[in-house]
């Protein structure tokens, strides 16, 4: 019997090209790290679905088990876990994030 939370996560990251599991919402992030990833994504011009884990305790723990990653935020692109705040920042500073998003056709608004 697979974990219902995992099933929900799997469908969310399948149906949405870019999903950010975060604390708060894109408009009102409630954690500095989540806010930073929101800023980077909007600067790179990538629309994304923000999922507020603070509203759902089961999801907040389930997502950490799902990826064996202990913190929030967590960014998924085309169903694949890309990383948390550190990795997204490192990729952004190295220009890798922009290249990856362009290559996957996810950049809609050039910042």
């Amino acid at each position, binding site marked *: 019997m697979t974990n219902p939370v995992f099933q929900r996560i799997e469908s969310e990251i399948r149906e949405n090209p870019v999903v950010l599991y975060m604390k708060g919402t894109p408009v009102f992030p409630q954690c500095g*790290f989540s806010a930073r990833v929101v800023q980077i994504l909007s600067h790179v011009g990538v629309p994304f679905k923000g999922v507020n884990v603070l509203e759902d305790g089961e999801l907040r723990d389930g997502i950490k088990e799902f990826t064996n990653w202990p913190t929030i935020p967590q960014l998924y692109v085309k169903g694949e876990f890309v990383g948390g705040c550190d990795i997204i920042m490192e990729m952004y500073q190295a220009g890798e994030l922009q290249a990856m998003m362009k290559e996957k056709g996810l950049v809609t608004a050039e910042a």
Partner: protein
Amino acid sequence: MAMSPAEIEALIKASIPDAQVTIEDLAGDGDHYAATVISEAFRGKSRVQQHQIVYAALQGRMGGVLHALALQTSAPT
């Protein structure tokens, strides 16, 4: 109960013996740190895998007692 830089370093080195670890206390409150870890164990691994090795070394403290650890990992150049 926050952690001290020495505790973090000791935990990382306990499971990554060749690790060169530098830790910076970002906020002086014992749970906001930045750490750089260089080890042969990271060679050929993705960033996610590298960070997961360090999180495993911290034995579940990451995200709990240790609220924020800005991590930079790499293999020795």
